[in-house]
């Protein structure tokens, strides 16, 4: 197979764009690198794997998960193909950092590790791990999802004003792509807020529910 990620070539920067003068903005809008291409391709592949292989086997995955993955694919595929806005996509996609902690919590719950000891795992202090992981999850959720996504959105809007001020004739395609990206990021941020409230409820029940029972 004659495929290489470096085949995804970027068009050269043109005079009217470089006259914008702010190299940082240009860099964010038009630069790509091997890491961003590979990351976006893997991210899309992971979402597609969930769609076609993993979710159909798991009845607990409701429509929200499908919508979430559809939003990711709808935005990241054109970003990858058109080689624009890689910086914003990569910055927003750092929200993936919370996934390992979420899954540790889910699996401790799934196997009821904090209540009953399981053969082979008795030497592990699961209650402590559960509390530590939960606290880390809450902190990282606030920083990486609730704060980072709006920050990336604000940066995007600031940069877009500068970008289009210098080159107003450009960019129906890029504007459409940008608007779609912002809409998807807003959707994922709203979902993160809803899930954060759910986590707070669980945490409250864990802490104060146990005290009430005692």
């Amino acid at each position: 197979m004659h495929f290489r990620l470096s085949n995804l070539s970027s068009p050269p920067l043109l005079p009217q764009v470089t006259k914008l003068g702010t190299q940082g903005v240009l860099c964010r809008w038009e630069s790509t690198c091997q890491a961003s291409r590979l990351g976006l391709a893997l991210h899309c592949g992971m979402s597609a794997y969930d769609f076609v292989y993993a979710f159909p086997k798991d009845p607990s995955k409701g429509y929200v998960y499908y919508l979430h993955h559809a939003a990711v694919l709808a935005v990241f595929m054109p970003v990858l193909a058109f080689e624009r806005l890689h910086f914003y996509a990569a910055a927003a996609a750092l929200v993936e950092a919370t996934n390992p902690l979420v899954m540790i919590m889910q699996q401790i719950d799934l196997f009821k590790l904090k209540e009953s000891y399981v053969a082979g795992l008795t030497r592990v202090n699961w209650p402590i791990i559960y509390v530590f992981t939960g606290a880390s999850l809450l902190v990282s959720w606030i920083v990486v999802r609730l704060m980072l996504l709006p920050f990336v959105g604000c940066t995007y809007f600031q940069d877009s004003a500068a970008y289009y001020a210098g080159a107003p004739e450009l960019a129906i395609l890029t504007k459409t792509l940008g608007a779609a990206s912002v809409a998807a990021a807003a959707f994922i941020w709203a979902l993160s807020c809803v899930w954060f409230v759910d986590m707070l409820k669980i945490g409250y029940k864990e802490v104060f529910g146990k005290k009430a029972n005692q």
Partner: protein
Amino acid sequence: MTAERTLLATPVHNLAAAAKAIILSTLACILAHIGFKEVVYPAIFGQKWWFQDVDATTREAVVHDTVTSFIMSPLLVWLYFLSVRLRIFAS
């Protein structure tokens, strides 16, 4: 030629490459899933491990979590960090 025209002139080439990359990544994830379920977990934990006692849906969910959250997510975060480092305050 404007940048936008240049952009419009390239997508067929880029779309094909992007589609190939995504298909390959999807296949890699599916292969990792099958590999963990059929080879890695049984080899590490053996047939008597508690993982063998859970129902099929739970087992699939655990393998899925392993592939997405414990392998892919850290890899993606590292790649994205490399992509954005030093540029976030660049302007």
